[in-house]
């Protein structure tokens, strides 16, 4: 590494972050970003801004970072997704501009990740806990998605009459197809790591506690053939393109749908927000996932309970 690269790396690593912790692996030229939006791990405006700052730094130093790894430092939670309290505030204020801007900022992150292979960066994410809505959307564009076995995820937005608007449709369709995107987004159901693996949305499922080893295995496996892998991933993008225009158009639709939410919908959203709060800092308490189960008793986890879906037959 020359002195210019060292200076750029030093600039990247020493920038003060409130919600992120950065780790550098010099051998693999891998940057690990640990998120810690305490105590409610969600995509707050400030958290989004910090994440974008990291991505901008990587982009400003082409060739410096070969691998980007994202993990959560909040035990039991990868990411609860959108900042529900902010949504409630903006919807009650009928503030379409801010809602749209929030959505666009999320899409900026998703779009960066979608373009990562073009920037010479291979991306890996490890999910070790609950990840809901926007949290799951943010996972989808990563090249390699690792889940620990107890992690659970889903798109609960339909339960309060909304839908995930920051890339869920595009990326789930690309990875798993229309029918699974329909099933996941329109049902609001929650899925185990194994169920997501069977739907081709998760690449690797490992036992709890083995996530770090799985990251290492992925990085060590990809690194010697990084150029070829990235070239192949670029070709994959050409084969199944996702455009920024489509992502932004869906954000606009999401904004319009959000403004149509009723008081009842907002109260449900507040219930989830309150449930997030309950779990914050104490993973033994019931959280948003438990609240979703209550909200959608008949369908959430129906597969687990009844065992009568086609997926259970896959073993």
């Amino acid at each position: 590494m020359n002195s210019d690269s060292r200076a750029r790396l030093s600039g990247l690593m020493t920038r003060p972050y409130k919600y992120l912790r950065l780790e550098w692996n010099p051998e693999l030229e891998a940057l690990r970003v640990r998120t810690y939006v305490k105590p409610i791990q969600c995509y707050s405006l400030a958290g989004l801004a910090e994440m974008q700052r990291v991505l901008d730094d990587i982009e400003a130093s082409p060739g410096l970072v070969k691998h980007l790894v994202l993990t959560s430092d909040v035990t039991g939670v990868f990411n609860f997704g959108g900042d529900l309290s902010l949504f409630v505030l903006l919807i009650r204020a009928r503030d379409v501009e801010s809602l749209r801007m929030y959505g666009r900022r999320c899409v900026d992150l998703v779009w960066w990740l979608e373009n990562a292979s073009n920037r010479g960066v291979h991306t890996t994410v490890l999910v070790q806990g609950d990840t809901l809505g926007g949290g799951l959307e943010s996972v989808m564009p990563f090249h390699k998605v690792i889940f620990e076995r107890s992690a659970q995820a889903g798109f609960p937005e339909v339960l309060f009459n909304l839908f995930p608007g920051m890339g869920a449709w595009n990326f789930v369709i690309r990875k798993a197809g229309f029918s699974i995107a329909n099933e996941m987004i329109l049902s609001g159901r929650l899925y185990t790591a194994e169920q997501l693996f069977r739907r081709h949305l998760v690449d690797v499922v490992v036992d709890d506690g083995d996530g770090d080893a799985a990251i290492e295995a992925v990085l060590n496996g990809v690194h010697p053939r990084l150029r070829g892998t990235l070239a192949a991933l670029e070709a994959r993008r050409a084969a199944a393109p996702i455009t920024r225009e489509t992502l932004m158009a869906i954000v606009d639709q999401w904004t319009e749908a959000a403004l149509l939410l009723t008081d009842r919908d907002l109260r449900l959203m507040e219930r989830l927000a309150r449930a997030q709060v309950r779990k914050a800092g104490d993973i033994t308490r019931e959280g948003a996932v438990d609240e979703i189960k209550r909200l959608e008793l008949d369908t959430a986890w129906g597969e687990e309970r009844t065992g009568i879906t086609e997926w259970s037959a896959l073993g």
Partner: protein
Amino acid sequence: MLPFFADLVMRTDEARREFETNAVVLDAVAHGMTIERYRKLLLELYHVVWHFNPVCAAAASRVPDAQREVRYYLYDHMHEESGHEQWVMNDLEAVGVGHAETRAHQPSAHTLALNGFNYWSADRRHPCSVLGMMYALEVIASVYGGTFASAIRESLLLQGERGVSFISSHATMDMDHMVTLRKLLNTVDDDAAREAIVESTLLNFHHITRVFEAV
């Protein structure tokens, strides 16, 4: 260019999150409060509510004609908020604190700091700063008020609106208030006024968080 309301939301979002994620607030919203702590909170709120209209009046008296819409808004709002300290008194009575005790209560340093800042800012900084106070209070009421009222009801086994009428009713009322406030804030185009509103919002979230923390 962003409308001012959107700018205000963005620039003060961390302060809102500081309030929302304060350990005491988190616990109160999730699990409610003991009766003793709820009484203390209402006693502090009584003094915040008591001074709300006088702060608005102080600000209205200094709003220049260039921002006369702000002044008219303050007149309307003061009318609407008149007597609401009485609602707090009634809630206090429902949880065992008599009117005389409420009136005699000495507010905490944090409540005095909150009220003191709002008078000072309206008088010395910029009269439009009062909109920052209103924004912070209405965000708290409309976003967290409903869930907080539910948590209090559940934890103290209160029936209906008894004991939570102030918090509960403001959670509902402030939904419309937020729309009106957004429209008004978007008409404020004076830089000094805008900066004072942002500063006031940050300070109000800060002091209100301390008030909660202390009970």
